[in-house]
């Protein structure tokens, strides 16, 4: 274990103006049942020390997981070396002086899944696998279990000391079905900030069979005809769209770098009046982040209120450079990674339409579904996005009637958000233990969601 007092004392002797320390210990249990065979059963442990120093406003990072009592000295020395090299670049960093944080937080759980017998876990996966293989047309079925216990200590020379432990658990299924020579794949999962009790509370066989049936039906479905559509987006795809296409452009470091289409637009209209977007570290269903990796409490940040851009997301450094306030969005993948500004749970606040009303009011169009969606990508500097949705439905006479596959939507995010003309009441936020958000080579657990919404004039293309 690393001795914080020794680290601070050593750094002070080297003349650093500020130091913060991240000590990280994470365990990830991963089981992959591939067509009934355990392809992988692994337990991965990440453990190490990362430090950041400021010397004359120049910032340097270093990290190591080497063993040895004096390794901390090497790490601090390297951070000092890195900070001094920053003098060549002239980039000065200032940190927003916020109130000191001292806390210990453990996310809610009842049963630590590491205490559960491996056989019990495997039985659930095998039963789920059997349920998927009973579905006609399924040619391949992979069931995956993931459990993460992430323990972080953050301490700084300002006196911060925050210790957090977060548990995230889930099961996912990946189904490939074939019909008349056409193969289609669907991945879906359910995860929660919880312990083993989450797994016990869900009928995984029904879940697996549902996904397998959708893959089978999708393999028989036609490809959507490319063109412009009036679209109803479900909760899941709204979350994906907001996170990727909008959320990244609100991240302070991207704004600071000049890479965001939202730079200089605080107080301006960026979406229709129906749209309110928030970033919230503690929303039900999402990932749980009580403090960020700079020890700043994560609260609910309204980035867009009734279509008007209100705030970016900040770290201590971007809060200074962009004249904002820290929002608790400074995050790093692990001890070895530098701080980036990251989203936590991004979602749209619910409106006042019922989902039935949305369909009844939309005579024709497409109902774009998130289940089986592959994700999306955006160029935040110009706002162009592209998303591959899951199997979706053509809407005729106010009803989703015909399943279609290969749905890929694209457009400009600001134009798309301005074309939102109806928002339903049914807010759903989700997270995942199997993935997250990638940025700068780092992965962060996130959540996203929203209610059903309607978007006019959406470009939809498709593969074959």
């Amino acid at each position, binding site marked *: 274990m690393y001795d914080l007092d020794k680290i601070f004392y050593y750094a002070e002797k080297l003349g650093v103006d500020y130091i913060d320390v991240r000590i990280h210990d994470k365990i990830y249990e991963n089981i992959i049942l591939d067509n009934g065979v355990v392809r992988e059963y692994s337990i991965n442990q990440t453990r190490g020390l990362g430090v950041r120093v400021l010397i004359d406003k120049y910032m340097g990072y270093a990290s190591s997981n080497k063993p040895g009592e004096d390794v901390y000295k090497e790490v601090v020395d390297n951070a000092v070396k890195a900070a001094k090299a920053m003098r060549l670049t002239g980039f000065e960093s200032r940190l927003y002086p916020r109130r000191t944080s001292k806390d210990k937080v453990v996310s809610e759980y009842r049963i630590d899944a590491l205490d559960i017998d491996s056989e019990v876990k495997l039985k659930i996966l095998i039963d789920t696998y059997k349920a998927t293989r009973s579905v006609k047309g399924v040619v391949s079925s992979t069931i995956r279990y993931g459990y993460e216990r992430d323990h972080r200590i953050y301490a700084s020379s300002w006196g911060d000391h925050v210790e957090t432990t977060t548990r995230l658990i889930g099961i996912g299924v990946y189904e490939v079905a074939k019909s008349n020579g056409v193969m289609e794949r669907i991945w879906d999962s359910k995860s929660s900030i919880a312990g083993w009790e989450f797994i016990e509370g869900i009928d995984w066989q029904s879940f697996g069979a549902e996904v397998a049936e959708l893959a089978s039906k999708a393999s028989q479905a036609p490809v959507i005809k490319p063109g412009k559509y009036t679209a109803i987006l479900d909760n899941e795809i709204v979350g994906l769209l907001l996170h990727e296409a909008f959320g990244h452009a609100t991240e302070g470091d991207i704004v600071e770098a000049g*890479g965001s289409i939202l730079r200089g637009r605080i107080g301006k209209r960026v979406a229709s009046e129906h749209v309110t977007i928030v970033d919230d570290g503690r929303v039900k269903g999402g990932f749980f982040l009580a403090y960020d990796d700079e020890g700043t409490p994560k609260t609910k940040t309204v980035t867009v209120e009734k279509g008007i851009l209100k705030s970016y997301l900040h770290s201590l450094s971007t809060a200074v450079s962009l004249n904002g306030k820290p929002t608790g969005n400074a995050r790093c993948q692990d001890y070895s990674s530098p701080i980036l500004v990251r989203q936590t749970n991004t979602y749209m606040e619910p409106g006042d339409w019922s989902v039935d009303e949305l369909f009844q009011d939309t005579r024709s169009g497409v109902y774009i579904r998130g289940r089986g969606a592959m994700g999306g990508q955006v160029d935040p500097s110009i706002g162009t996005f592209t998303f591959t949705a899951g199997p979706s439905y053509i809407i005729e006479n106010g009803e989703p009637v015909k399943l279609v596959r290969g749905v890929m939507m694209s457009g400009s995010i600001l134009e798309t958000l301005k074309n939102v003309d109806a928002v339903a009441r049914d807010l759903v936020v989700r997270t995942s233990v199997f993935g997250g958000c990638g940025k700068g080579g780092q992965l962060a657990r996130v959540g996203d969601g929203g209610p059903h919404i309607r978007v006019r004039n959406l470009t939809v293309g498709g593969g074959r």
Partner: protein
Amino acid sequence: MYEYMLRLAERIFRSLNKAGIEEAEFYGSWGRNIVLEISNHRIKTATIRELGEYGIRGSIGKRVAGLASTDLNPNPDDIAERLKNVIKASPEDRDWKGFAKNYSRGVMARIYDDRISDIDMDSAVELLRHHMDLSVEEARRNGAEESLVAEGMMSIGVGGVVVANSDGEHLYDEYTSLSTFYIVKSKKDGEESSFTVFYMDRRLNEERLRRETQRGGEYSVKFIGAKPVESGRYKLLLDQYNAAMFMDVVLEPAFSALNVQEGRSPLKGKIGAEVIGEGLSIVDDPSIDWGIGSRSFDDEGIPTRRKHIVRNGVLETYLYNYYTAMREGKKSTGNGFRRSPASPTTPQATNLVFESDKKWSWDELVEEIDRGLILHGMIGYWMSNPVNGATQATVTHGFLVERGEVKHPVKGVVIGGNIYEWLSRNLVATGRELLKVGSIFIMPLLIDSVNVAGK
């Protein structure tokens, strides 16, 4: 670090043996990297990162499991006990024939550049600053009124890998790597545009680095004024960068024997059949100097070798690791690589090299286009589907070509089709210049009848 890892492996094997684990393999990797982060045309942070990690997989009978850790000072008896519990809980894999044996090296390539391993922090900062400035100069030369490198990073350093098994065999290797990506933004005539530079190499190849960073500057300006085109069917000219990205996502996974055996590859049952155009061949080649995928042994100690996957359009072999080869009573092709240290290997290509008999110049390819798009940049291509070959992306940097003439820049349209059609009946011609993009060596491809969803 190599000796440390090897001693750690020996200590762990002794404990595994005591615990009754019959067979085991160890995979260790380590790295020391300088990572520089760019913001607003300045280097914002510098990081010196050292990481060592390892994985152990063990078996009892036909039950197998793995553990991985970054704890470099573990209690080997604890590891053995934990691994034994996980192995015992795993159901039997009837196809399990043990871990790979008879470690040796196959083809050799140069993968360690002293100029990278010896670089210090100040020199790394200078190197990046110089190339950022080259991008901006090139943007200005192409008419940009303002230009900067908005954000991105560079990582430069040394890595190593060691594989060992409980029979006392081991192999190790060390390599260097340089990777950089950053976004160049430019303004011209009141409009903004950007382009992402992305480059990886095993050596400090300043000529290529200059080419990439200057291209980033030039292309950050060239697409100003881009607009969508009408929906329809177009010819599509893929430059090497975008061709490589599609091949990496849609085609390469289909060659994996595991995906074939598990019903996730459209190439199942097609050995000996024509799967792409007869003028095209695809080679898996780990012997290329400075290739990102060049290795003398794979992640389970099997020697690597050069082989045709597809010769003149006909599928000759899938890519095998030890496990998938044993399932079919074959020899591994030396393509077993790991997703993470505790993962089993899965079959993956080393360097994928495309060969073609239709070698047209770039100008000849453009002249051949009656109505089409040239693709220089896209997003969302990674959502294409290797299970059925469905290929799609949104164009961010393209040109409309009519009757052989470039008309205007294009963005915001979705292209779609199927990779196997693109590489066979829809393939009009291939370009002359083979370019290394990551671990793929490919030429430009001109494809007919591509779906475009636009205005």
